[in-house]
């Protein structure tokens, strides 16, 4: 089964990348772009077919490695 993990900055945490992307879009002539936030998208192949177990396992991976939970949130989607 496949897990898709989104790691995003918590609300209120400064996102310098997002800010720079917003600026760049503006100078490329894209108007009307408000806030831009950049996060990570991680896809994992797992040899686990039980969704509950898979979710628990990936949650642990997020806590231990994939996300920096001091400043980031994560969410998990399972597929297949």
């Amino acid at each position, binding site marked *: 089964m496949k897990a898709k993990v989104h790691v995003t900055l918590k609300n209120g945490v400064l996102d310098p990348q997002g800010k720079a992307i917003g600026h*760049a879009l503006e100078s490329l002539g894209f108007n009307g772009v408000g806030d831009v936030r950049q996060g990570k998208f991680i896809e994992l192949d797992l040899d686990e077919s039980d969704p509950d177990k898979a979710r628990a396992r990936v949650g642990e991976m997020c806590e231990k490695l994939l996300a920096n939970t001091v400043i980031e949130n994560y969410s998990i989607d399972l597929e297949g």
Partner: protein
Amino acid sequence: MKTAVIVFPGSNCDRDAAVALEAAFGTAPAMIWHRDNTLPNLDLILLPGGFSYGDYLRSGAIAARSPVLRAVKEQADRGVPVIGICNGFQVLTESGLLPGVLMRNAGLKYVCRDVDLVVESTASPFMRGYKAGQRITVPVAHHDGNYFADDATLDRLEGDGRVAFRYAAHDNPNGSARNIAGILNERGNVLGMMPHPERAIDPKHCGTDGKAMFTGLVEALAA
């Protein structure tokens, strides 16, 4: 001879590059601010190292889309020599002036150290000061120097003699495909390289193995 260094917000090797150019050419380069969308006629353009626009999104990506890059492209198309060092190389690949991409170093860490390079091709004005097969020591300092292109592109680069420098085998600091450290465009007037020749022009700093690039350019441009 009129040379120029393009300065992006976040460039930080612009002064070092200017020092190297002035030492070789005898006159200070023009420092061109990234918002300038017209360039004077130039004999050489240098895109310096650093973190243009913080290297946010992808290294060199935002700089590659700045107005001044359009002007740089026009001059490159006319045959003006353009050299991109480190972040400058990243800007050149992002802008399509050179093929391939520079990905995160294989070790994932920023790496700053001397590396041994092998001079591969001498068929360009940039390489006039070197002999093919020569080994030189020049520092690298980057986070995204892992050169990647598909096999067909790599074969073409090698077949056309467009690999300018390779890391000596066993001294590849970033995982670059085929140990590639620097490449040329088809016409041979655009060079991108991760190592910093402008940091190697002075025995009191990092040695002098980079000097020949600049003195060679002076000769080549005068010829």
